[in-house]
Every structure is written in C-alpha cells, then in structure tokens.
C-alpha cells in the first residue's frame, strides 16, 4: 500500500553538554489521506520532536519522512503547524496574521481580492470574523488558538500538524475548541496529526491513536484504531461502551508506562542499562 504520509523508521539524537541524547528510535507510521491521528505519551517522550521532524523544522538522524512519496527536507506551508503557544505575531491584527500566511502561500496564484476573501473565509470558519482588527494581546487564549488554526488552515496544507493545540486552555474552552475542530474536520477532511495529553480529546477526535513509549529512545508502543461513527457527540459517547473501552485502553497504556521508570530506578538490576538515564526524571 502506498501511504499518503510515511514516517519511515525515524530516529533522532541531540548533542547535549552531557553527551549524545537519543530521543527517538525507529518510529514508523503510515498515515492515509484524510486521516486524523493523535500522538499521546508522557511529557518529554518526544512527541513534539516527531511533529517537528514531519514539519521539517528538525532533521531526523536516521530514517526519513515521505509526503506523497517526496522526502521532507525543509519546512513548508504544505505542512502547516499549530503551535501550543498560538505563536501569532503580537504586532499584527488577527486579520493581518492570517493574511500574512495567505499572501505568502497564494501571492502568485490568487488576486488581491481573492486573498482578502480567503482570509475572511478561514477566520469565519473558526468563528473569529467579529475580531478581525484586534491584536493577539486583546483576545482570549481560546480565540488566539482559533486564529492559529485559521492561519494553518488558510495555507491549505496537505497535512495539518497540531502540537497540544488546546493544552493551555481551560477545560470549558477546550471542549468548545474540540467541537469546533470536529466540525471543521467534517467539512474539510484534512489529514491531521495532533499531539495531546488529554485521553478524551484523543478518543473523541481521532481515527487512530498512536501511543508512544517513554524516552529516551522513545518509539511507538501501541496503535489504537478508533472505530466510532462520525459525527461524534461527546454527550452521547459518554455512555457508549465502545468509547469507554477505547478510553480505558489508552489510560491503561499510559498508566503502565508511568510506572516503568520507577521500576527501573528502584531496582537497577532488573534493567539491562547500567548507565543512569538522563531523562528518567523528566517523564
């Protein structure tokens, strides 16, 4: 099977003052067009690193990423990123933030008027059409994240990469944002990789959940196919047996992983590693 996005046995190590730090080892993942995949794992295991390699912001030490059979060598608007900290330009208005991306991507192919319309269209999609002239400092965290998503969507990316997009939001806002995202996803059917540490979010939004083992040398521990019909409704699903089963699977995986570093450190003879793990405390 020729996949749309192929994460092909990637590994990466960083040079640190304490020596080489192997963060990822042999991650492989095939993603189909229009698929929504979540990455979940303990903090510091290397989720952002995977996403940054797909985005082209980092180069893998071993292996590589293929998008439509072309190797990813640098960042580009076909792999738009929504960062955890919105990362809007604070000196530009909401409109200008999105317009900057639109001008950059469609400057040659769309007329001025079309670019204006496309900017407004994408901001309407995330329900931000009322705040076009505000600056990031004048809107709430949830609104900023919406604008960040609008900016990414406006690039018409082949893959949308989201790094804990709702992680910094309060739970009520998060719920709204998840519903918004599902609604947009139902319309546009983008290919999405989203990092999350929220189990409900992962199950609710994803077609597949990729669970990563703890670092260092983190890899794919388990992949869960979420076969729930769309459109999904969080209230209806709360009582759904299948939903709760998926949820339990993820929780179980994370819980087991959570214990593992402690077992290693309390019983050094059990593990084969004799050297101290530089990251054991990080998990």
């Amino acid at each position: 099977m020729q996949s749309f996005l192929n994460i092909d046995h990637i590994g990466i190590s960083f040079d640190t003052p304490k020596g080489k730090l192997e963060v990822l080892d042999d991650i492989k993942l095939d993603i189909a067009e229009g698929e929504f995949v979540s990455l979940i794992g303990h903090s510091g295991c290397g989720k952002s690193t995977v996403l940054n390699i797909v985005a082209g912001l980092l180069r893998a030490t071993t292996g590589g990423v293929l998008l439509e059979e072309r190797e990813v060598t640098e960042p580009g608007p076909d792999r738009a990123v929504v960062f955890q900290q919105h990362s809007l330009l604070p000196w530009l208005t909401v409109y200008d933030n999105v317009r900057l991306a639109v001008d950059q991507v469609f400057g040659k192919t769309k007329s001025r008027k079309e670019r204006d319309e496309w900017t407004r269209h994408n901001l309407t999609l995330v329900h931000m059409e009322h705040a076009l002239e505000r600056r990031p400092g004048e809107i709430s965290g949830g609104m900023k994240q919406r604008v960040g998503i609008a900016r990414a969507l406006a690039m018409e990316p082949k893959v949308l990469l989201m790094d804990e997009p709702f992680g910094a939001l309060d739970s009520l806002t998060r719920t709204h944002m998840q519903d918004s995202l599902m609604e947009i996803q139902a319309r546009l059917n983008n290919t999405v990789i989203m990092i999350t540490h929220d189990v409900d979010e992962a199950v609710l939004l994803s077609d597949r959940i990729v669970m990563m083992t703890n670092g260092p040398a983190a890899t794919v521990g388990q992949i869960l196919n979420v076969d729930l019909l769309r459109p999904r409704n969080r209230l209806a699903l709360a009582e759904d047996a299948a939903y709760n089963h998926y949820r339990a699977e993820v929780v179980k995986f994370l819980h087991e992983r959570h214990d593992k570093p402690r077992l290693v450190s309390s019983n050094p003879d059990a593990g084969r590693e004799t050297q101290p793990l530089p990251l054991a405390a990080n998990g």
Partner: protein
Amino acid sequence: MAATDLTDKTFELPWLARALDWLAGDDVNRVAGGLTNALLLPLLGIGIFLLLWSAGAAQVQTSLGQLPGPAQVWEQGQNLWEEHQAARERERAFHERLDKRLQKAIAAGDPEEKLERIRNRQYTGHPTFVDQIWTSLVTVGTGFLLASIIAIPIGIVCGMSAGFYAGMNPLIQVFKPVSPLAWLPLVTIIVSALYVTDDPAVSKSFITSAITVTLCCLWPTIINTTVGVATVDTDLMNVSRVLRLGWLKQTIKIILPSAMPMIFTGLRLSLGIGWMVLIAAEMLAQNPGLGKFVWDEFQNGSSDSLARIMVAVLVIGFIGFLLDRAMLMLQRRVSWDKDAILR
C-alpha cells in the same frame, strides 16, 4: 510603602511624566487621578532641596564670592533670557538698517556689486544661551542619528549570526568603556586631517563633537539590538520557516518588530549617554553649545559666573530628562506591546 523603593523611577518627576503621558495620548482619567496624587510629594521634595541649597550656599565662600543660592540662580536665568531677547532685538534692528540702506542704494542707482556687498553682510553677535542650547541639541541629534544608523544594522547582523557576533564582541567590549575625553583628541586630529574645505558648511568643532557623541552612543544600541534580535521567540521563527519567508521579509515582518522594544531600550540609553558626552565634548572642542557656555563662564570668572553655570547645569539636566521622555513617547507610539510600559 514604608521602605524606599529605589528604582530608576525614583528619580523622575512623576507629575511631569503624567503631563507628558497625556501628550503621548494616555487615558485622561488615569492622568488626572495621578496628577493630584503625585503633585504634593515632589513639590515637597523640591522645596526641601531649595531650602537646604540656599542655607548651604550661604556658608560657602569661593574665590568668586559667595556660592549662589536659588534666588541668584533664578535671577541669572532671567538675565540670560533677557540677554537673548536683547540680542534678538539687535539682530532684527541690524537687518532693518541693512534693508533701508539697500533700498537707498537701489534708489541712488548704485552698481550691482555694491548692492551685493550690502546684501552679503552678516550679523555677527555672540551666540546667546538659548542659541547655545539649540546648537547642543542639533549636535547631539546629529551624533545620535549617525550612531543609530550604524548601530542598528550592526546589531541586527550580530543578533542573526553568532559568528559575526563572536567577531564583533571583543571590539564592542573594549571600545564601550572608553571615555569621550579619550576619543576627543583622536577625533579632533582625524577630522582636521580629513575635513579640509575652503568653505565649510559646518564647523570642525561641530563635526568633532558630533562624532565623539557617535562613538560613545553606538554601544548600548548595538548590544540591545543584538539581544533583541537574538532572542526572537523560536515559535515565531518557526512560523517564518513554515511560511518560507525570504531573508528580507523575515527581517522586516518578524525580527525587527519583535526586537523593536529592545532596540528602543538601547536607543534611549544611547541618547542619555550622548547628551552627557556632548557637554564634555563641547567644552574641549569649543563647539558653541552648552558645554562651551559652561567652559567660557568658568574661564570668565566674573561674580555672576557661578550662578550662570548653575543655570546651565539645571537646563542640561532638564533637557536630558525631556530627551528621555521624548524617546519614551516615540517608543510607545511605535510599540505593539502597549502593556509593557518601559520606563
């Protein structure tokens, strides 16, 4: 608020700052509330200072007579103003006479070359205190502008390229602490060697003073611009990379705006240093500004000299303060971050 909070704010004049805030377009209500709040204590402070000054001055006998108190200084301040007015009046009268003579000569049918001689006659009065303030402002403005034009691009390149910064850093560190008094002789000689024209548009002493100011106020702007550019949020740089912004667009759209607050911090520091340096430079270079005024009064040694120097000291301080406020106002105008009130 029992303990004294010693910040750089402590030594400013809050009520004046409020008035200037208002000029800068701040909320009027907030300003009005602050005005009543912050008016009494500063006035009290100034009052106590004046009392101590006049009491202390009465005890000090110098070679030029008694040390002047606030009253004498005030009087000299008025004198200087009146001298300025009188000089202006003389200048006006001179031009009037000249005009009349010209008309008469034209009526008498004098040859063109004689008319030209009358037209070319210049008024040759001594510069007054107010003229000297103006000269100083122009000189410091020139030096500061020149420094900014050089320092900001260097800072940007330093911030973007670690290699370039590594190369520049030793030079910055070594030249930064050099006193203007050490630069001045060098600058004087170099300017004399290079600036040779028969009809100089500006005087050598002006160029020497301005360049000395430039040499001293390059460094804070270079350093702060470097830091501002080097510490642009990595997320924002990643946005730029994802969008594949070109080098120039990245600089204009991302790096410069985000470094702007730091650049302005550097510019404000530079202007402050420039103003201090200028007075010393003018003294030695004999540029007809405030520094020369102080020097001339010192050499003059008349009974009024001390009071006149004190007037100059107060004016120098006050103008320095105004310059800083002007930079702050400018910074607020161009700053995207209205919350970060950088005092």
